[in-house]
């Protein structure tokens, strides 16, 4: 197996996903098969080849620092699951 059940659980935890055992089992099989396929990349000689993270050659995109109207608080909060006093409300973090 290319990826173990424990690894799937570990990675799901990093990604903040809860998987039940059936999902862990299914993903381990499917993702294992995909990762095995991806191993093909090792056939390619990439010695001295620079990696590409962006297809178009652009360096820093500068522009004038002009003041524009920002999104106002009400609209920025309009989609919040919970809000209060102009703030996003989250579950208690400090015990």
């Amino acid at each position, binding site marked *: 197996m290319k*990826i173990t059940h424990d*690894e*799937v659980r570990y*990675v*799901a935890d*990093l*990604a*903040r*996903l*809860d*998987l039940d055992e059936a*999902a862990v089992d299914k*993903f381990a099989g*499917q*993702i294992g*098969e*995909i*990762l095995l*396929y*991806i*191993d*093909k*990349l*090792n*056939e*390619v000689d*990439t010695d001295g*080849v*620079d*990696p*590409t*993270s*962006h*297809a*178009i050659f*652009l360096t820093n*995109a500068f*522009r004038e620092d002009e003041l524009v109207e920002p*999104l106002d608080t009400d*609209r*920025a909060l*309009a*989609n*919040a*699951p*919970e809000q209060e006093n102009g703030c*996003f409300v*989250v*579950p*208690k*973090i400090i015990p």
Partner: protein
Amino acid sequence: MQPYELTISEARKLLDQKQISSVELTRAVLARIDSVDPKLNAFLTVSEESALADAEAADRAITAGTSKLLTGIPLAVKDVICTEGIRTTCASKILENFVPPYSATVIEKLKSQNAVLVGKTNMDEFAMGSSNEHSAFGAARNPWDLSRIPGGSSGGSAAAVAADMCLGALGSDTGGSIRQPASHCGVVGLKPTYGRVSRFGLVAFASSLDQIGPLAKSVEDSAVLLNALAGHDRKDSTSVPEPVPDYPAAITPDLGGVTLGLPKEYLQAEGTDPEVGRAVAGAIQTLEGLGARCVEVSLPMTEYVVAAYYVIAPCEASSNLARYDGVKYGARANDAEDLMDMYRKTRSRGFGPEVQRRIIIGTYSLSAGYYDAYYGKASQVRTRIMEDFRQAFTACDALVCPVAPTPAFPIGEKTDDPLTMYLSDIFTLSANLAGIPGLSVPCGFSTEGLPIGLQVLAPYFKEETLIRVAGSFEQTTEFHKKRPRI
């Protein structure tokens, strides 16, 4: 002929000659949606009220003599592009009730021409998929055969154009998501060069690959739409300040002086349906008849394209989708014990299986100890794929090849076999990895009556070449005129 059957260019003439009003045209399109969309599920939201308001504004502009190319034209938009005041779901439960507080730049551009937005189209959740089956709101269907996929991820937009539920549509293409559904639904789909069109307001899937583009009933219409969309945007620092040419003017009656490259790895690929092979071979003959010179070229990295893409795209997706945490927008699980539990429950319930699968692949490939072997290696292979195209374009002006190895497959056939589904993207992924523009134009039908598309690929910012080659082809063929009976 019904008004909803018009192309954009045909409707433009009738609108400007006052033979039809935008309100009449829009009502006809909305009635068409009412009558056929229950079978197709191409729309997630129909914005009837605002569409009619758009149409009234367009009619005023036409009367005032200030009409532009898209004034009064009813268009549909893939539900991954933010529309102020109109729900934008990305076909995901996590954004089911999300109403954007602003519009994408492309929407602002359409509005500045007084185009009419009739609704938001179905797609694979967060644009991840090639079949539309990964929509949280049920798959869209292929207008040519309701038991088959329309393609994906912009399947709703392609189906809507093919079924005359709009005169043109916007999609997004991260690995073929405009070109492949266009091919499967028998319409024209164009993925511009990376950076040609602003991504501001496009919900991010894989930021180095995503690009917005048009789906239309003709090459000319797609050129008109591209003219409206293209250009630098200060709100997207990856958009490129290249001048925008007059795309419709690129169409010529013949292809004298044009050299077309035939990538042998694409044309001789195993697993390509013989009917697709025959349709593409026939199209190449037609192109030669129009005066194009054809030369064989090689893209040696072709067999590694799928592997490189399915590392890079999930890596970028896993990072981009970290923002859905139940805090600022989108759904939140309200039965959580603490913050971490809230994140986990929100994301597990909000994302469908394909999105979770890709988040896991991406997170794994980026995690400590695996980064170099997966993301690093794939990024180097990406450089070599780009080098393939650079080399090929020294010998030709554009490449022609299939869009997809088969016509549209039956719904359910590949749902539980993600790797097989990924492999069907073989001919479209490379353009996104390289950043070059590509287009699909109808070039034939299978014996079962399913459309087949021809793909044209061009060097950076050479959309005009795509439009010239495909436009000339379209003028001498009838494939794009055939419409499905629904």
